[in-house]
């Protein structure tokens, strides 16, 4: 895997253009189907023009999840319905990356409209896990995590609606952060479930993840849910957890958890204890309802968010037009994949007259209870630690035909999105050669503490130094 400091050194030794060209070569030779669109021309052009002395990420290549709008570069959400759509504007995070000197090398694969846990629902084919190409990279930001694990690019952006940054980070042995809701502008992020999701940074180590996070976090008046204020998160890169109180929610170690995962996470907690932290078990009794509430809310919002894709103004248009009603139906029938249709239909149902009370409004009540679980648990503790995923990466095709089983894999990640708190996933062990992810959750807007905890863990372990053998 590649780090920012290696990249900056390489730029100093040759040029940003050379470094970006090498990166593009690796991408084009990729065996993991990590990219949907490689922005070769734009990337070389940007590298040529970058002032390598200006900006914290000057000349550093970055991969962008294909649901984040990039001016002049096709943005598909891995869906047929957005094939050929070229946004006329940049997302807020893209503006900030460009200001920081980063070079966008292309758009990476994902589950269609971020709906999935394996990157198998992409219209452009699944991304393969670089640790074992028979296995999924996780999802929905599978391309983002896999391209880093494969050593193709040092940095990537993902988005996390119910675990979509943390799950692939866990499955691919890299570091990914789901920031507090409101910390990063969603302007330009194509909505799946807008009350739940945040854009998140992914990198090969905590320091790089933090540097990237530092660049993209900050207020944006174009997103009404964006909070004011800027912080320098690199101040949290401190190797010290003395006095830190860790909460371990036993509800996150439920049925179906892999034994190696359970052991690695507890080892991680004990390692932090050795370094001066203390831990206690905490109760989060509503965790068992989180999955159901999450899917009702996410699908309800999705049914509305995806209504705009009708082929009238951009994206898929079929050969023959009929009356508008038929034309809409045909475009949506052919443009959306199975999983997207399932979620739109279920969400439409959950919001319908006569069912709304039973599903959507009830899910909102559960959401409030989940939030209260976090508030209570974090009253007596500084961070919560749990497995990111209950298992290591599963095999391609293993769960894709059984949506319910696949949804169950999100059990430990969705409560974080329902409550809005921040959470980072980083490698904490291996099981049969596949990485295991440890999840550190914190208080609203207290990214510093989870970064400090993650950094300390990383400095005192060597999991992050392991990389898959890239063919």
């Amino acid at each position, binding site marked *: 895997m590649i780090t920012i400091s290696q990249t900056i050194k390489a730029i100093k030794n040759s040029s940003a253009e050379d470094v970006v060209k090498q990166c593009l070569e690796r991408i084009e030779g990729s065996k993991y189907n990590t990219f949907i669109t490689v922005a070769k021309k734009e990337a070389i052009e940007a590298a040529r023009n970058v002032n390598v002395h200006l900006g914290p990420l000057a000349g550093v290549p970055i991969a962008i999840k294909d*649901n*984040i*709008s990039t001016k002049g570069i096709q*943005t598909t*959400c891995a869906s047929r319905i*957005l094939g050929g*759509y070229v*946004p*006329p*504007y940049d*997302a807020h995070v893209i503006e900030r990356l460009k200001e920081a000197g980063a070079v966008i090398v292309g758009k990476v694969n994902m589950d269609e409209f971020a709906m999935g846990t394996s990157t198998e629902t992409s219209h452009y084919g699944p991304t393969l896990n670089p640790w074992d190409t028979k296995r999924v990279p996780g999802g929905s930001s599978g391309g983002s995590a896999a391209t880093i694990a494969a050593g193709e690019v040092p940095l990537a952006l993902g988005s996390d609606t119910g675990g979509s940054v943390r799950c692939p980070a866990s499955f691919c042995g890299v570091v990914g952060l789901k920031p507090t809701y409101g910390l990063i502008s*969603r*302007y*330009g*992020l*194509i*909505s799946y479930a*807008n*009350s739940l999701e945040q854009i998140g940074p992914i990198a090969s180590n905590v320091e790089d993840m933090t540097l990237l996070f530092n660049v993209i976090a900050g207020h944006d*008046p*174009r*997103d*009404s*849910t964006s909070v004011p204020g800027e912080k320098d998160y690199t101040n949290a890169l401190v190797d010290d957890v003395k006095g830190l109180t860790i909460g371990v929610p036993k509800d996150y170690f439920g049925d179906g958890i892999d034994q190696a995962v359970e052991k690695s996470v507890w080892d991680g907690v004990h390692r932090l204890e050795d370094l001066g932290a203390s831990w206690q078990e905490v109760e989060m009794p509503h965790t068992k309802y989180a999955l159901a509430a999450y899917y009702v809310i996410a699908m*309800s*919002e999705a*049914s*509305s968010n*995806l*209504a*705009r*894709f*009708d082929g*009238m*103004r*951009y994206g898929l248009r079929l050969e023959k037009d009929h009356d*508008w*009603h038929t034309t*809409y139906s045909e475009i949506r029938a052919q443009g959306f994949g199975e999983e997207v249709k399932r979620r739109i239909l279920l969400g*439409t149902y959950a*919001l*319908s*007259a006569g069912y*709304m009370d039973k599903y*959507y409004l009830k899910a909102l009540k559960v959401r409030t209870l989940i939030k209260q679980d976090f508030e209570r648990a974090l009253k007596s503790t500084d961070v919560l630690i749990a497995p990111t995923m209950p298992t290591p990466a599963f095999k391609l095709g293993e769960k894709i035909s059984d949506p319910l089983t696949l949804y169950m894999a999100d059990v430990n990640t969705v409560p974080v999105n329902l409550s809005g708190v921040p959470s980072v996933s980083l490698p904490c062990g291996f099981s049969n050669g596949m990485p295991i992810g440890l999840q550190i959750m914190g208080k609203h807007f207290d990214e510093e503490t989870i970064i400090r905890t993650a950094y300390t863990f990383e400095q005192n372990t060597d999991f992050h130094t392991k990389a898959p053998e890239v063919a």
Partner: protein
Amino acid sequence: MREESLKLRPYLDEVGVMIGLEIHVQLNKLNTKIFCGCPLDYHDDGPNTHTCPVCLGLPGSLPVINRKAVEYSIKVGLALGCSIEEHTQFYRKNYYYPDLPKGFQITQYDYPIASSGYINIEGEDGEVRIRINRAHMEEDPGRLVHEGGSIERSKHTLIDYNRSGVALLEIVTEPDIRSPKEARRFLDKLRNILGYLDVVDTTLEGSMRVDANISLAGGSRSEVKNISSHKGAERALLFEIVRQKNLLRRGGKVVQETRHFDEARGVTVSLRTKEEAHDYRYFPEADLVPLKVADWAPGIAETLPELPDARRQRFISRYGVTDDHAKSLTSEKQVADFYEQVAAEVDPKLAAVWIADVLKGELNYRSFSIDAYASEKMVQLVKLLAGDKITEQSGVEVIRTILDEGGTPDEVVAAKGLLKAGDDLVTAAVEEVISKNPGAVEDYQNGKHEAVNFLMGQVMKKTKGRADAKEVRKMIIQRV
């Protein structure tokens, strides 16, 4: 129209008409749209020139509330006697239509910006109070242009998103309106109030669009959409009353349905019945945070201008004008301002007569606004009239000439020689006419009183209309 109204009169008394209105008011005096920075001055520009990712609903774009639009809405709410909610929130109304680029409309549902107000109008039997249920904010959709005219005849339809995202305030009344005429009066009064608040330019097309709910004798109601004028509202409602009444008389049943008003043909046609009604799946718009508007209201209340009803009362008490004149003078803010400027300089009662009874009529006849006649010119004219320098007939001529050709009253009077003729001249003319028309004089003396009119006409002709007709009549009768 008047005949139709007369024919309908018995129906109205007999059948228990209940009408409720929903008025979409375009807050077109704002500089920008409700959720983005696109300017509103698109009326003279080509289609899709005033758009951005937000009002085009491009993937990834997010709405940001225009705070001025919220202020305007609160202003209207307060002027309608509404209470302003503690918090206001936006919702999504989900439905598909080509003019709606996001596949949902951002509107309000629970927690609308204003609720429970009223407007007093002149009803069928004296003043009545029409209650306002609520006023809520929403975005206007784009505009469909059917190539080739009507939707039936066109081969394809074009979409212009310039209008997409213009702030609307939807004002919903209770079903307190009892007749089409009351509906029209309500709309006129509402327009009047909005004009005073300076939040809407009601002369722009589509600035006030009306949907009407109507039922007879407690039966099912029909909702009539696509009403674009106040006169159209009256006609659509008249048609609906006749239609529903005839349906009932033939033993039929009024079904709950949505009907479309075809303005050209003056009829309503069924769009969809209750069974086909949309389920809009309203749910909160998470991209916009709830606004604590209760804090805004007191400051905005202080900026409210004097409203039509209050101003009318003040005109009566301060200037001593009649109720009818006060009503006429306050029905438009600009006219009321004009009147007060004139009344400050001359006799307020005489000014009221000449503005309300003469000037407004001449302006209406020409479809001019009050701007076409400067207030100083009215001051000059009323002074001429008060000083008995010109006749009333000449006064009217002065107004007409200024409106059609320009100039000041003094200039027109001089150019046309309208100054009242001197007494000697009039006396001489009277003498001459009497001596030259012995036949007419004889007729009069024999009891044919109309003969005096002929003699008067002759005198007026001789003096080119500059003589006072009443005076002339008196003089003739004295002499013969």
